[in-house]
């Protein structure tokens, strides 16, 4: 194609050019008048501002979101504290300032110097924190010595407070200073060194919801670096609030019941998987962290042999002991190796291989049926049942009933427990399954490991007729003024396939554990409330016979009590585990009973559906 380039055709532009010139003149006049305005009219003002460059930037921390219990009672709040920061630009003489400052703040001068030096690269116009949460005395010292402390400023900062101290500390979690690895994450791009972020529990898992958005302001300072006035300011956006499934009152009962013990308690709504209360003992005080934990306190927590930072309810893996007999019994009935009418003879021990396997009751239960074997927790019955089933059929039901796997609880570091099979044994140890191990497994000893939360989900599923709920701790995330951001409805992860007859039989037997004569769980009985439960005593050390009372405390048995109530249409599941507590019926059942009593007292006469409604609609936070 031939281009038209070679034609000498011109473009008539002078007519348009007139208008274009006008536009250009207007635009340049605009710039000139703006320069006139800045440089001539306001020149002196700006010159003044620039002399010392008196404009500083200060960040305003966003208030963190609040956690509420299911009734809308706040579990955390905030209190004002005073922070000291410095504008390096306004410090005329660092050598003179440091001694004066270290006296006022009773701080190590070397540390102060290191802090002031550490941000050499950053903007000298930006406030940097020197000490957080100073005492009233320190505040008075700084304020009265303003003249000796140029460039030093005191701010009021809102700090997180946990009014109930240790209560539910493993669920709530704690805050800590952001670390290098976290600073590099995309979601923390606006964070700086020294910021507090969630490090554990809900505070960590819901950090992005809770943190909000910091604001900031430009302030004009005087020659001493003191705030004169605010030029521009952007208010921070508070974090979103979380509504938990927790019931503060039940939680208090649980905390009290476990006050001097080690172990864990999980209280669950079997109809939704809601965690109504959960504790792990020993615990810690999240307030220590909110102010920036001291190295001594942190070391003490880490070195404590009882591991107070571990959440035993989801991370503690324990042998289930006799609680496991529920699984063995279900397996026996479903696999039809026994019927409810099948009886075995218990003489107090059972010979197998070249060994006698003991029943906890030395004198024996005599001829005994399945119901009574559960009520009285007969070991010999379950040894023989276990032998009929074999290890892999027991494992099949344990897995189907939710053991040996994560429950899907939203908080980090949940442990799966262990359901041993013959292939697992071969792989793990290289030797085949021994017959005697079947006996141990059938009564929940041996390789079996469960977490208290797992048992609570499994028991809830048995109680509600077979629905596996994912344990739920956060119901909803709401914006500061109440509008819904996200909701977490109850989630049924799967259904267990156990025949209704079997379930009915088990529920009735568990009712018997608490309410029949000879039942091991009599101490959990609540007048008027049909409690169904099971005791468990998990051996910590292998021994041939007898109880553990004569052993040193760290070798005492773990005590389990697991229950739900009412036996029909259950509304509450309680799982209590007391480490080295001895016998389940004696040590753990009373803790569970206190929870049941409190729950019954408060819900008496209220229909379950009403209760449910009350929980699903959290009260908006009070201002």
């Amino acid at each position: 194609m031939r281009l038209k380039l070679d034609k000498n055709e011109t473009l008539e532009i002078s007519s348009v050019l007139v208008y274009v010139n006008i536009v250009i003149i207007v635009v340049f006049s605009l710039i000139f008048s703006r320069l006139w305005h800045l440089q001539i009219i306001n020149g002196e003002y700006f010159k003044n501002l620039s002399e010392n460059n008196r404009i500083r930037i200060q960040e305003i921390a966003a208030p963190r979101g609040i956690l509420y219990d299911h009734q809308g009672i706040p579990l955390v709040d905030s209190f004002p504290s005073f922070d000291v920061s410095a504008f390096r630009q306004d410090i005329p003489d660092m050598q003179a300032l440091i001694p004066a400052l270290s006296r006022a703040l009773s701080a190590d001068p070397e540390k102060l110097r290191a802090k002031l030096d550490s941000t050499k690269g950053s903007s000298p116009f930006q406030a940097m924190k020197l000490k957080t949460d100073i005492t009233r005395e320190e505040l008075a010292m700084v304020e009265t010595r303003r003249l000796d402390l140029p460039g030093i400023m005191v701010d009021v900062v809102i700090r997180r407070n946990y009014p109930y101290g240790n209560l539910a500390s493993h669920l709530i979690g704690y805050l800590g200073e952001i670390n290098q690895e976290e600073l590099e994450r995309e979601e923390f791009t606006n964070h700086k060194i020294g910021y507090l972020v969630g490090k554990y529990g809900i505070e960590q898992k819901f950090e992005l919801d809770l943190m909000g958005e910091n604001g900031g302001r430009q302030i004009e300072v005087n020659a001493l670096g003191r705030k004169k006035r605010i030029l521009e300011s952007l208010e921070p956006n508070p974090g979103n609030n979380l509504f938990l499934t927790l019931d503060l009152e039940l939680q208090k009962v649980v905390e009290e019941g476990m006050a001097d013990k080690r172990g864990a308690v999980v209280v669950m709504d079997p109809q939704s998987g809601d965690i109504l209360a959960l504790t792990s003992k020993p615990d810690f005080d999240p307030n220590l962290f909110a102010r920036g934990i001291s190295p001594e306190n942190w070391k003490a927590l880490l070195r404590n042999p009882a591991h107070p930072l571990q959440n035993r309810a989801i991370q503690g893996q324990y042998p289930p002991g006799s609680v496991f007999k529920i699984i063995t019994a279900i397996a026996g009935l479903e696999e039809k190796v026994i019927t409810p009418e099948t009886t075995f003879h218990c003489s107090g021990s059972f010979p197998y291989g070249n060994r006698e396997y003991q029943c906890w009751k030395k004198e024996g239960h005599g001829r005994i049926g399945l119901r009574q074997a559960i009520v009285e927790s007969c070991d010999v019955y379950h040894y023989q049942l276990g032998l009929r089933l074999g290890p892999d059929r027991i494992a099949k039901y344990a897995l189907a009933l939710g053991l040996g796997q994560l429950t899907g609880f939203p908080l980090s570091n949940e442990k799966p427990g262990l359901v041993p099979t013959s292939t697992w044994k071969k792989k793990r140890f290289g030797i085949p399954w021994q017959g005697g191990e079947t006996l141990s497994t059938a009564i929940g000893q041996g390789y079996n490991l469960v977490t208290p939360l797992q048992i609570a989900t499994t028991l809830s599923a048995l109680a509600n007729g077979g629905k596996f709920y994912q344990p739920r701790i956060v119901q909803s995330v709401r914006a500061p003024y109440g509008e819904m951001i996200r909701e977490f409805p109850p989630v049924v992860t799967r259904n267990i396939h156990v025949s209704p007859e079997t379930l009915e039989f088990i529920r009735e037997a568990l009712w018997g554990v608490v309410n029949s004569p000879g039942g091991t769980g009599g101490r959990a009985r609540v007048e008027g409330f049909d409690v169904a439960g099971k005791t468990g005593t998990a051996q910590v050390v292998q021994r041939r016979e007898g109880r553990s009372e004569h052993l040193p405390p760290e070798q005492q048995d773990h005590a389990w009590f697991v229950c739900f109530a009412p036996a029909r249409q259950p509304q509450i599941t309680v799982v209590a585990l007391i480490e080295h507590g001895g016998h389940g019926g004696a040590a753990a059942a009373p803790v569970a009973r206190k929870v049941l009593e409190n729950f019954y007292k408060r819900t008496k006469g209220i229909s379950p559906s009403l209760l449910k409604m009350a929980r699903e609609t959290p009260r908006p936070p009070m201002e």
Partner: protein
Amino acid sequence: MFDRRLILNFDWTLLITAAFISFIGVINLYSSTYPHTGTATPLFIKQIYWLLMGVGGMAFIILFDYRTFIRYAYPFYFLCLLLLVMVMFFGRTTSGSQRWLQLGFISFQPSELSKLALILALTRFFIENENPQGYGLRDLLTPFLLLAIPLFLVFKQPDLGTSGVLVLTCLSVLTFMGLRKKTWGTLLVGWAVAVPIFWHFLKDYQKTRLLTFLNPDLDPMKTGYHITQSKIAVGSGTIWGKGFLKGTQSQLHFLPEQHTDFVFSVWAEEWGFIGAFALLFLLLLLISRGLKIANTSKDKAGALLAIGISAQIFWQTFINVGMVVGIVPVVGVPLPLMSYGGTSVIVTLMGIGILMNISMRRFMLSR
């Protein structure tokens, strides 16, 4: 064979103006990056290298008749698109936007090159497609695509400033093309529809940046702080300025971009209203020479090219200075020949070379 008229018609005013602005630019870079510590080559020295390379490009361009370049307008345009696409995949990211392409040991910004490519491509289109009745909407489909493709790629980087310059340059060329009144009306409506859509695709920080100049409260920590400090710098220069290397604002390096997007604040602080006025006058002179060349060009091609190049210099000057004095949002556009940056300097000088080229050949008849 050599034609005496080539020398006779050489636009010395244009060359001297450009040289003068470049000289001021180097002086100012010396100040805005002062003190020159460290072992790396100081930026003002590097800027001199870029300027020399630009002069080389300029000389090369003058040798050939400008119509030769229009012949290669489309291949050049597609090469630019290719480079922009390459930036998308292999580009170097600095402070959140992917603008740089590393070729061997040099790195450059294809988005700068795309300004020139767009002007050439539009010129080529309009001389090939004439419409004495005035252009209608349908005629403008190709120019629209010529703009839209690089615009999209540049916008994605993201580079709001260059995107704006591309759109405004294209509109400026259209102004001279004799569009029907109705077409202008349609374009206006189209614009009204496009702006909210465009707004929707902006990232949050970009929205904040665009709005902050109207309301510095929106972002007192970053952009708002820059605007405040930039205004203080400019204002504190008063009539005569604080003197070379004496700008307190500049010497404390409160602005991260004071050698690129905010060079004008350094100049205005140290040389005052007089200095700022003089610099803007030189830039205005550059633009008006460009438009004069367009007016006296012997053909449509030369006129269009000259209009495009002048428009680009004009809009960059307006956006950059407007942003520094706080009347235009902070979008990031280099000030021609003043801001540090190799690609920008070389492309601007090449554009000026094209202007000279058109001026020199205005009395030559084509064969």
